């Protein structure tokens, strides 16, 4: 018996589900310097994302005048899986930048 009602003891099962391990990936190599590099700015439709990244763009240019930026504007609030129609465009865009700064939250 897994529970003994006479002494009020309960042996209980776990409600926490098992999960297969998620394959993990390391980070891409870092840049040695941002001068002359093209930095991608990944922006969703949350209200503050665009002005925050525009400010990042301006400050990057102040520090690294030879750097360039390239914007990718998502059409939704969430991750790219939500935007299969934009996946090809996104993959093309990502090939053309040296690093990406996402500001996709609030």
């Amino acid at each position, binding site marked *: 018996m897994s529970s003994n009602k006479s002494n009020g003891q309960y042996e*209980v099962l776990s*409600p926490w589900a098992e999960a297969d391990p998620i394959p993990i990936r390391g980070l891409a190599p870092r840049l040695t310097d941002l001068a002359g590099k093209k930095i991608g700015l990944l922006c969703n439709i949350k209200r503050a994302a665009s002005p925050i990244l525009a400010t990042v763009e301006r400050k990057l240019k102040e520090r690294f005048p030879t750097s360039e930026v390239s914007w990718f504007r998502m059409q939704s609030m969430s991750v790219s899986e939500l935007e299969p129609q934009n996946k090809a465009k996104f993959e093309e865009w990502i090939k053309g930048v040296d690093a990406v700064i996402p500001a996709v939250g609030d």
Partner: protein
Amino acid sequence: MLFYEFFANDAQSAMINKGMPGVRVVPEPIVSECTVMEEIEAGVDGVMDDVVAALTRPLTAEEKSPKPKKVEKPSRIIFKGNLQEVNRFFYQRGWADGLPVVPPTEEAVAEMLTGTDLPPDHLVAELEPRRGKATVEKIAINAVMAGALPTYMPVLIAGVKALKSGSPNTIMMAASTGSFAPVWIVNGPIRHDLHINSSSGTLSPGDIANATIGRAMGLITKNVRGVRKGMEDMGILGHPGKYTMVIGENEEANPWEPLHVERGFKKEDSTISLLFSQSFQQLGSYGTDDKGLLRTMVYNMTPGGMGAPWLILTPVNAQSLAKRGWTKKSINDYIVENARAPRDHFPRLPGMGEDKGDPKEPVPIIRLRPGQSNPIQILVFGGLNPLIGFLSGGYTVTEKIELPANWNKLVAKYKNVVPTYARY
């Protein structure tokens, strides 16, 4: 990745669930949805050194090749203790919802499993974002904890399928700062088998099916999906409906097609539909004829609402409109055309592009996407009064409820579990 510092837990869970635990993050202090440029300027200024460092600091060995996390293999019996100790243990582990739970013993889970023909190890779905395995047994364990009856198992299994088929929208809605609560709408004959309330006080406590089906799905959201308050669920104000919001549609009093038929199922099918709703509003009607009812609707739509509204009509409202010739479509068309607010009353127009017209010009509150019609779902339930309700929210998915072979016998066994109120 730049994110508002309030989202530190959420960002960490997201990175792990996406298989990139080492993503370099830069928390910033700019409040969500900030509109004050001076604050954005100061916030970005304060983290620019960190942004540059995140892009240029050489990787550590762990960042290059992160070590895989050990596979969790918890023991089957997770704890032994008395009622209070079991409840404390579950609560402290983060597996409960703040209310007492029924201990999920082998016997209680075995009884719960009589509600399905599927074997305990049958995998119904892996649920995002954690990809937790919603086996029939895990569903049953959470159902026991919620106080559900075995006859609810088919509904819960279909509910889990709805969470799966609705991904990734169901992840976004459950995790949103907007505190969207899942609303579970049950259609078809099973409403009567399970005594799912569709009349007076449908959304109030007091009906075991309405109370525990939603609660069980809430525990599954926490313990299988891995969406927990302040960790992955970033709801700001929160929502009491996250305990439970289960509605039986009053199909018998609905003069139009019930929701599941509208969504492609047969009338004799039993289904569960999942909607995520941010708020629930009840309105006194401006009259009981069509003019009064429609004025109530169009005058009370708000430009600050989030998501498409669901219109809740009580049986008397629905019948008043239907007998005067109104259909779901014509009600939709009327509201879309007539519910308006000045352009500058809108907090923003997500996904609708810039709208730079006259700020005082009244513009439609509900804007149709190309090809969209009937943006407002109409649902009939509640008592016999002309109150009107709005559920603001959106994104709906419907799943058929499959019944076990011995369904009638099972229903008979639990059919008398109903409250009897003594007069005083």
